């Protein structure tokens, strides 16, 4: 598939903002605009572009076209996005929430547990929180006390659950191997599309609610993922030691391997 790549240069408050509009070459049907805010030379953006390709492969059958509008900072965008994929620091994320209070925002890089504790209504977190990673490592040590394995979202050698297919597709498109950040960018775009394609009429809090209650997505990690009320994506994690996958968390035999809430903060403080 050949992407139409249109570069627009818009003069706005922060100096120069580069807007990239990527869409399927077929521009018929309902158009869905997703905003990407962050650098475009980082793996997370390549991941989101991979997600866009796959979203449009699906959309083509359903008369839906997704556009990923990439900007490095807020401002200068005339369209109201259906959702925002954010790859920015915490301060910028705050600004985005202020500017777009009714739009689902998907954080793709920040791992701070505190952000999850804030329980923002329309804010979703794709990467595991620090607390989730620590819990996964703690579980793993109970299973293998001497192991120095670290918890990760993804690994380039992951094969199960059609992970191999995703790794191949990403490598072919992007020219480098999928890492934690690239997976987060891909997952953000893909889960948005998987939800929107079933309910293209939804926007704003309607879409927020749909993401929270009706997600149908496994992230090529073999388990039914969903969002916690903290906005955190429930997901299994990989234990990596010396660049090899040695295990998966929740760790079977230590906890119930189906219990994704054994990792990190499961609920908002009342």
């Amino acid at each position, binding site marked *: 598939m050949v992407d139409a790549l249109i570069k627009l240069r818009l003069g706005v408050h922060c100096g120069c903002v580069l807007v990239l509009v990527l869409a399927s070459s077929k521009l018929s049907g309902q158009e869905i605009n997703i905003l990407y805010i962050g650098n475009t030379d980082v793996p997370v953006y390549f991941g989101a572009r991979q997600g866009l390709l*796959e979203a449009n*492969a*699906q959309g083509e*059958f*359903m008369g839906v076209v997704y556009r990923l509008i990439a900007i490095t900072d807020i401002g200068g965008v005339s369209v109201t996005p259906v959702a925002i994929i954010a790859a920015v620091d915490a301060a910028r994320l705050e600004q985005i929430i202020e500017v777009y209070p009714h739009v689902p925002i998907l954080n793709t890089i920040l791992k701070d547990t505190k952000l999850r504790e804030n329980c923002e209504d329309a804010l979703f977190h794709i990467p595991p929180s620090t607390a989730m990673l620590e819990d996964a490592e703690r579980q793993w040590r109970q299973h293998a006390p001497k192991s120095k394995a670290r918890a990760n979202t993804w690994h380039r050698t992951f094969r199960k659950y*059609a992970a191999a*297919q995703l790794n*191949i*597709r990403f490598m072919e498109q992007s020219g480098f191997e999928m890492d934690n950040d690239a997976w987060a960018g891909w997952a953000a775009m893909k889960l948005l599309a*998987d939800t929107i*394609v*079933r309910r293209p009429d939804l926007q704003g809090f309607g879409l927020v609610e749909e993401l929270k209650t009706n997600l*149908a*997505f*496994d992230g*090529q990690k*073999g*388990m*039914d993922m969903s969002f916690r009320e903290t906005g955190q994506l429930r997901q299994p994690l990989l234990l990596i030691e010396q660049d090899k996958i040695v295990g998966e968390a929740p760790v079977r035999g230590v906890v119930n391997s*189906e219990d994704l809430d054994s990792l990190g903060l499961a609920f908002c403080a009342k």
Partner: protein
Amino acid sequence: MYMLKFKVIKVAVIAAVITATFSTFGANLPKRIFVTNEKDNSVSVIDGKTNVVIATIAIGNRPRGIGIAPDLSEVYVAISEDNAIAVFDPNTYEVLRKFDGGHDPEAFAVHPNGNIYISNEDDAKATVLNPENGSKVDEIKVGMEPEGVAVSADGTRVIVTSESTNMLHVIAVPEHKIINNILVGARPRAATFNRAGTIAYATSEISGEVKKVDLSSGTITGRMPLADDRAKPKDVLLNVDESKLFVAGGRANCIFVLDAHTLEIQQSIPVGKRVWGLALSRDGSRLYTTDGASHQVSVIDTALSDVIATVPVGKFPWGLVLYE
């Protein structure tokens, strides 16, 4: 009134006796059952009368999908790591030839006209192959990670499930045009038609559910989540009178029996671990299952709804076909 009632009972008794006779003496049992063993690079041959493995065929690397020619002259096996389809003789077990099956071939179905419809997982395509010479008849663009393939009894429709696009693609034959795309649960894996070709059933691995689809309107008319969280269902098929649906429950280690009309779960029949493949004898009396992680095939008497034999086969049996 009494006479009528008596007649009904009489007919029922005769029917029960006939059923019992068939299930006991196995007049219509398959002659042989061929089973692909994914991690043994082999096909096990089971005698349908004795439920004992009578031969093992060295077939190629990582055999998965298996199908039989409409005239029963040949059996086809997708040997995934050889990127090929192997063809063997169901009587002599001789491997006759191999041909290009595309990259990492897995699931396919054999059309009544003899052609093979295979999903190409990495290429978002379904390919139509002529097994006589392995030539490519056609290619159909489908969603990402296509998996299950089903052919309607009259051959006018093919369904391909695409796992990453969460869709059933309904393809018209011989035009090879997609006439409907139906969104289902996460990671649809397998589908089956009713005999009239008006209804399809599909399993979704991640959402752990079965969906019923009206094919004239392309709408979902029923959905049933399987009771067990570990259920990652795979194969699905109807019984002979189309009143029941059998679903291979994956890690739930059982066969779910659903009412084909309401999708209500009527029963679950415990089998071995990680059950994926299903095949039903033509008379409907026997259901065969591949229990991958138990390295066995279970034989279910459908009248008793119980396992009457388990047959140890090779490592990680994947799929199976019946020669009958």
